[in-house]
C-alpha cells in the first residue's frame, strides 16, 4: 500500500493530499511537506484523506506538529476521512481540535 503525499498552496491555503498508510515509517514524509508549506505561512491547512486507509499515532503527532509549526490561528481541515480514522481522532480527543468536512471550501 505504501504512502503518498503531495502538497500545494492555493490562495494562501496549504493543501496536502494523503493516500495509503501513514505510520511511523512514513510520517517523516508528512513532516517534510508540513515544513515545506510552513515557509509560506498559510492561513489554513487542508488534508485530503479520502484515500488514506491507515493512520497510526505517528499521524496524530503530525497533526500536533502542524499546529505547533503553523501557529494556533491556522485551522486544520480534514476532508472525507474514512470511518476508522475518525474513530482514532475521536478516541484521542484530537477530533475536537480539527474540522472534519466533506468538502473544502464547504
Amino acid at each position: 500500500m505504501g504512502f503518498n503525499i503531495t502538497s500545494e498552496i492555493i490562495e494562501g491555503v496549504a493543501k496536502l493530499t494523503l493516500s495509503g498508510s501513514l505510520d511511523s515509517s512514513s510520517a517523516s514524509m508528512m513532516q517534510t511537506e508540513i515544513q515545506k508549506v510552513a515557509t509560506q505561512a498559510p492561513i489554513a491547512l487542508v488534508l485530503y484523506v479520502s484515500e488514506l486507509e491507515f493512520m497510526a499515532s505517528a499521524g496524530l503527532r503530525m497533526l500536533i506538529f502542524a499546529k505547533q509549526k503553523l501557529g494556533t490561528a491556522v485551522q486544520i481541515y480534514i476532508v472525507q476521512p474514512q470511518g476508522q480514522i475518525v474513530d482514532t481522532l475521536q478516541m484521542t480527543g484530537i477530533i475536537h481540535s480539527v474540522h472534519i468536512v466533506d468538502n473544502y471550501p464547504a
Partner: protein
Amino acid sequence: MDNAAKIFPASLDSLEPIRDHVSAKCEALGFNKKKTYGLCLAIDEIATNIINYGYPQAGIGLGIIELLMADEGKQLTVTLIDTAVAFNPLNHLVPNQEDMNKPLEDRPIGGLGILLAQQNVDEFRYERRGDQNCNVFVVNAAS
C-alpha cells in the same frame, strides 16, 4: 492459514508486512473491517515502540519481533515477542481526559500509541517471560 510463528526484522519497514499478516488472518476468520483495523492499529503501535525505543535502548542494532497467532472459535489472540529492554506498556502514562481537552498545540505527544493499543482490542496484556517482552492482544469477533 496456519498459526505458525512468523519472524519480522525489528525495522519500521516491517510495520506494513506485520499489519498485512494480521489482516489476512482476520479476513480468514471473518472479522469485520472495524475489528481488523483496530487489531492492526494496536499491534502497529506496540511494534513501533519496540522498534523505535525498545531495541535501541537495549543497544541492539537490529532485533526481531516474533508474531504468534492463535484462534479459538471467534477469538483471535496475537502475541508480539521481543527481547529488547523490559517494557510494560500498561505502566506507561497515557493521555487522560484533561489532556484530551487541551488545544492541539498543548497536547502531550507521548502515550498516544499505547492509548490506541489499549482501546482498539478487547483485551491487552503484558507478560515478562525470561528475557522476553510478550504483548498479548485478544479480539473477539462477536463483541
